[in-house]
Structure formats: structure tokens, C-alpha cells
């Protein structure tokens, strides 16, 4: 049995991102990090990262500063709710991204 034959006879999915498409399009509100309040950004050291820990979709990076992948962020707002520094605000999706300005 060849590999090709095998893959036409049953459902065996291969891992990859974006099965649900660009789930960033689900967002109504967009999380925006205020780097002046964000603990790792402000202190310039690995710290806090509640946003990274609680994100259901692993779209926040554990970096200084944390970066949100807007392609896939569904905009749930958990990061904003759990940020101990109140550094993340949920802004209306119709507001342009900073780099778009």
C-alpha cells in the first residue's frame, strides 16, 4: 500500500495552523497592550506573562514585550481581564491598528 493510496482511503489529518481559517476575523474587540504599563516591557525582564498563560489560543508570545498574533486572536479578552497591570485594553475592531495609521 503506497502513501498516496493510504491517504485517499481514510481521514488522517496532518497538523497545521489555521484549520478554522483566519480566526482573527472573529474579533469584535481587539486587545492592545500598553507597553508603558505592561510589566515585562516596563521592567525589560521576563516576568508576569499572565496574558501568555491564560490565552486559549496561544496567540500571545512569551517575549519582551508580549506580541499578539492578530491573524488568529479571536478577541476573547481574557488577557485584558487577567492582566494584573491593567495594561491590555479591548478596543473596537474598527479602530485602525497602529501600523495601519
Amino acid at each position, binding site marked *: 500500500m503506497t502513501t498516496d493510496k493510504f491517504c485517499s482511503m481514510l481521514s488522517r*489529518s*496532518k497538523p497545521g495552523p489555521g484549520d478554522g481559517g483566519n480566526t482573527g476575523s472573529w474579533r469584535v474587540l481587539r486587545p492592545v497592550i500598553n507597553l508603558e504599563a505592561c510589566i515585562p516591557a516596563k521592567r525589560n525582564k521576563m516576568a508576569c506573562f499572565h496574558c501568555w498563560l491564560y490565552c486559549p489560543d496561544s496567540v500571545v508570545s512569551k517575549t519582551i514585550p508580549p506580541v499578539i498574533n492578530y491573524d488568529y486572536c479571536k478577541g476573547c479578552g481574557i488577557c485584558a481581564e487577567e492582566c494584573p497591570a491593567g495594561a491590555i485594553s479591548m478596543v473596537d475592531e474598527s479602530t485602525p491598528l497602529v501600523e495601519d495609521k
Partner: protein
Amino acid sequence: MENQTSILNLTEEEFVHPGNRACSGCGLSIVYRTGLKALGKNTILVVPPSCLTVLQGLYPVASTKLPCVNVTFASTGAAATGVRAAMRALKKADVNVVAWAGDGGTGDIGIQALSGACERGEDIIYICYDNEAYMNTGVQRSGTTPQGVLTTTTPIKGKLQEKKDVPAIIAAHGIGYVATASAAYPLDFYDKVKKATTLSGPRYIHVHTPCPPGWSFDTRYTIKVGKLAVQSGLFDLYEIENGEFRLTGASKNLVGKARIPVTEYFQTQGRFKSLDQEIIQKVQEQVDAKWARY
């Protein structure tokens, strides 16, 4: 058990791809992501129909970076048995064989196969994520739906019966490790899964996973709602290791302290809106009586 893992030393390696079909703010997504970090690469997953089937992706794209076999609803415990048997037959002993099922797939339709696997002492980890109803089919009541909860099959009066205590049923099999956890405390869950990987025989972890659409709360409150369930003393975090019960983490810290009234937890979710004072009072008394024993 003390937390051994902190946010800072929790691995950055991810085993779940973003862009999957889980709902926004999904409690399962949080524990799935965290649990797979604890299990690591050398793991085979067994999954029955549930929200996780959807999260995992539609053919031919998989959101999980681990090998997985999707199985029929009632068969999870037996299918995990089969994977382990094959691993023994093929001399691949060091693989984690992990069943990951919902509360209906575990406590209702899947309980026979799970009970059989526990009785036989199968060398498997079974993780039940409890979102307290059949969420994937549109929020129908399950055995683990709490009393009074509105679901699409208890639409007016709320569920008449009390929540089935599935971890206690599994613990009654006398297996070596039973634990509960919550999506609101992912590091506690991580440590319990990690500990399970170091043990053998049947290991059962029951994890409470708040569900924004099914429980009717805003997606941003998944962690807050999960924490309230624990801090009100309704859902307790514990381990039963070789028959010895102990509270862990946030629940352990509650012993001897004032708990948040259960009604504060109920008020955060639309599913409790038909609860009358009588039931709230009864639940509070049950919780108080339970905690008096701790």
C-alpha cells in the same frame, strides 16, 4: 501538592496550532494547550466526539501536533486500552496513552468503557474536561450539569437533579491517582498532568472548564468564573493518591477561611438565572457541610 511550575518556567513549546475552531474564550482550549505541554511529544491521544473533535480540526488539517485517534462516543476507555495494548505488543512502552473526553463522553455514555479500563488497571491517563453539559451539540443537559441549570433540554425550570460526582465514581475503583483541576488554575492542572505521567496504571484527572456560550457569560470572564467556582467551594481542587485525599492549590488555601457565597458564582452566569432562593440556600448548605468535613 505544591505548585512546582511557574509561568516563567512553563515551557513555551506549543502542541496546539492557533486558528482552530474552538469558541472564543474556550476553557477547554486553555487546559488542552496546557495539558499537552505537560504530556509532551511522546504521547498518543484518544478522543471521542466532543468540542475537542471540533477544536482538533476538520480533515485534512489537524490543530493538534500529536498523534490522535478519534473514536466512537462510548468507547474512549476501551480505545485507550487498545492503544496501550498495541504499545506493549510493539515494545513501545514509554509512550503516554491519553484519553481526553468531555463530561458526557466520560460520565454518561462513556462510563462503562472507562469503568472497565479502571477495573482492569489499564496503564492510561484519562482527562475529562467538564463543561457541565453537551456543549458541542448545543448545550443539552448531561449527568454533570448542576442542579437548576438552564440548558436546551432543561429550558424553563432548569435541571431538576444534582450533578453526578464522576471523580468520586472513578475513585471508587481504587485506582492510584484521581485529581480534579480547573481551567482557571492552569499551572495546578499542568502539575497534576505532569505528575500523572510519572505514575502508572489508570490515572484520572477531572478538569472544570468554563464555557462562555454554554454558561452564558462574556468570553473575557472564563478565568474569573472558573476561580469563583473554586473559591465559593463548589468545585474543589484535590488529589486522591493511593486512596489518600488531599485538597490542593486554591482549595487547600480556602480551608479555615471564609468562602465566597455560592450565589456570587451563580450571578456571573445566565445559565443560573432561573435558580430560586430555595435551591441556592440548599446548595450553600451542602457546600458548607462539605467544607465542615475538610
